């Protein structure tokens, strides 16, 4: 009895090993799987949608030109639902069930803070294309996590320069009550003090909860404290609500400078139209009208033709992440998680924003934000145009590597 069952199990084992071997060989023409995790539902679902559009366009272009190492690319998209636990589950599903070779994604800083520590367990590289918390390239950094988009340090450094130029002294903030809102204010204050030592950071600040529908009480409170300038980091649907309610309260006619940290998002500008007043400063990771080079022109016109609207920063970030993976896989010469992760380090690739380099010390891309003042309506694209545009040089604007990151 025992001999027979032993024989059977050895037979089964051999068969299984044999199957594995054949399936490994069959992978040469199989697509390289990209796993993507974005906000696909809820209030900010449109950000995930635009990221998906960027990914689809990049994949179609690359596959049309012969793929990567002779293999086509394919993508699996998962919804993070804005929760770290859901994103972690999605990441595990993408790697273990869908056999993703590389990962990308993340709109929410809160989700990034939860997911990044789990990534070494999955041993696949992850390029963050939107979430801006500095922690993922700071105290939470690891060799699998890269960020291709601007982080809070870079954006606030640019914001502080703009703020210092306006000359306004007393600053306050209205931001969502989570990592992004608080860290934006913290670092804006730090960089502003460096550039303008006599700036005053008021203690009366407002942090409405993320997804608050009524901003009027906070608008009134900030107006009553009479600042010279206000840093506003609400985004998405919150920003649409905020601007409309602020218009009702006469917020933009009070004479203080207004800086929207991520205001130049086409998702929001399209919804607001001419309700966003002229003369406010808006920042973004990428503005489609700010870069006059061949790559950007081709990208923008291709995107407009395909989707009927100018590309948002989320679309461009996702598009570039796919191209970054193409370059990294070709450099590594094989589709292996650790090899690709290593190939990304220090990698330089051409991008619509110019040359893009992943810094070796913390895996953060050295790119700068674009800031501009809202101007007249751009009737062709049906959103406000930007005037006085400043695109900060990534090499100069990025602060040194966070000491907490030891890569």
């Amino acid at each position: 009895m025992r001999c027979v069952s032993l024989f059977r199990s050895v037979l089964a084992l051999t068969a299984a090993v044999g199957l594995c071997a054949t399936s490994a060989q069959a992978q040469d023409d199989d697509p390289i799987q990209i796993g993507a995790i974005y906000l696909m539902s809820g209030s900010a679902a449109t950000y995930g949608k635009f990221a998906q559009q960027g990914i689809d366009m990049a994949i179609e272009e690359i596959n049309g030109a012969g793929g990567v190492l002779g293999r086509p690319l394919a993508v699996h998209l998962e919804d993070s639902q804005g929760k770290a636990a859901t994103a972690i589950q999605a990441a595990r599903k993408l790697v273990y069930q869908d056999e993703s070779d590389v990962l990308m994604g993340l709109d929410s800083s809160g989700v990034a803070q939860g997911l990044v520590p789990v990534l070494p367990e999955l041993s696949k590289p992850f390029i963050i294309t939107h979430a801006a918390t500095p922690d993922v390239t700071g105290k939470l950094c690891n060799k699998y996590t890269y960020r291709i988009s601007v982080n809070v340090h870079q954006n606030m450094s640019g914001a502080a320069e703009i703020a210092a130029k306006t000359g306004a002294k007393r600053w306050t903030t209205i931001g969502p009550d989570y990592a992004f809102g608080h860290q934006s204010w913290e670092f804006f204050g730090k960089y502003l003090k460096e550039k303008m030592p006599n700036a005053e950071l008021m203690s009366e600040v407002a942090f409405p909860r993320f997804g608050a529908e009524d901003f009027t009480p906070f608008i009134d409170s900030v107006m009553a404290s009479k600042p010279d300038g206000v840093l506003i980091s609400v985004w998405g649907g919150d920003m649409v609500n905020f601007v409309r309610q602020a218009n009702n309260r006469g917020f933009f006619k009070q004479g203080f400078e207004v800086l929207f940290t991520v205001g130049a998002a086409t998702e929001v500008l399209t919804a607001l139209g001419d309700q966003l007043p002229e003369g406010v400063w808006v920042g973004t990771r990428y503005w489609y009208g700010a870069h006059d080079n061949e790559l950007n022109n081709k990208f923008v016109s291709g995107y407009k033709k395909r989707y009927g609207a100018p590309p948002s920063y989320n679309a461009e970030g996702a598009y570039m992440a796919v191209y970054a993976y193409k370059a990294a896989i070709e450099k590594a010469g094989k589709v292996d998680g650790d090899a690709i992760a290593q190939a990304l380090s220090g990698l330089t690739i051409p991008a619509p924003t110019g040359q893009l380099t992943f810094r070796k010390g913390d895996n953060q891309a050295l790119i700068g934000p674009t800031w501009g003042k809202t101007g007249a309506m751009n009737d062709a694209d049906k959103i406000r145009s930007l005037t006085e545009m400043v695109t900060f040089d990534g090499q100069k604007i990025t602060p040194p590597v966070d000491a907490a990151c030891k890569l």
Partner: protein
Amino acid sequence: MGSLSLALLNSLDIGLLLFIIAVGLSIVFGVLSVINFAHGALYMLGAYLAFSCINGLGMPFWLTVLVAPLAVAALAVLIDRLMMRFVYQREPADSLLLTFALLLILNESVRLTWGTGIHVVEPPALLQGTITLFGGIQYPLYNLFVIAIGGVALVGLWLLFNKTRVGKIMRAAALDRDMAQVLCINTRLVVTGVFAFGAWLAALGGVVAAPMRSIDPGMGDKIIIESFIIVVIGGLGSFPGALLGALILGLIHGLGGRYLPQINLMLPFVGMAIVLLLKPHGLMGRRASL
């Protein structure tokens, strides 16, 4: 003084809008003993229908206020006849699961139909702009309209429950459904009617809120949490409780946001915890005290 009046006025318009939405949830629980998780999704559907009617079909706002909530109420009748009627007599967990499933279905349907974009509806021309009130404070005309509509709804509902036969039937069915049936009250009709009425109120809230808030696929989820807080504070199934809860939450948002902006995130939950510690059934609660 001006800032306090402003904050109070703000609390009133937030509170009364929340009342219109939350009272439907409370009534459905009071009469049917069902906690309708999909209530927020019905509110969202009302807002999206308002967007389609006003921006898409060019319907005037006043017509939309009549048409859109009725359309949602008609959908609710279908939901009741095809799905809800199987779970009314079962244990509460079954109806919770069903309404939660309904919530997910409605959320996804809205996203598939209208896309993920953020939409904006303008107030009707008559209600645009601001008006200068006592003390020199500027207030948006539309927000005053919301206060007015909330007041009308309040008075209308009170009259319905206390002065009409329909209202008496609803209260009777809430107190004792079997007895009501013995007395030849058509409880089937009452049940469908109440469920549809709750949905109508939610959608009315949605249409009224549409010009004040951005319309996005997450608005249903945001409002259901607010509604739950209100009915917990006020007492599930209690009409005056819903009013009290809504006004209290309106005050927490309006005054808390204005004077305590640093801790505004936790205030509603602190309020809820205090009420639950002192009065576990809510301030006016005990079910079926319509």
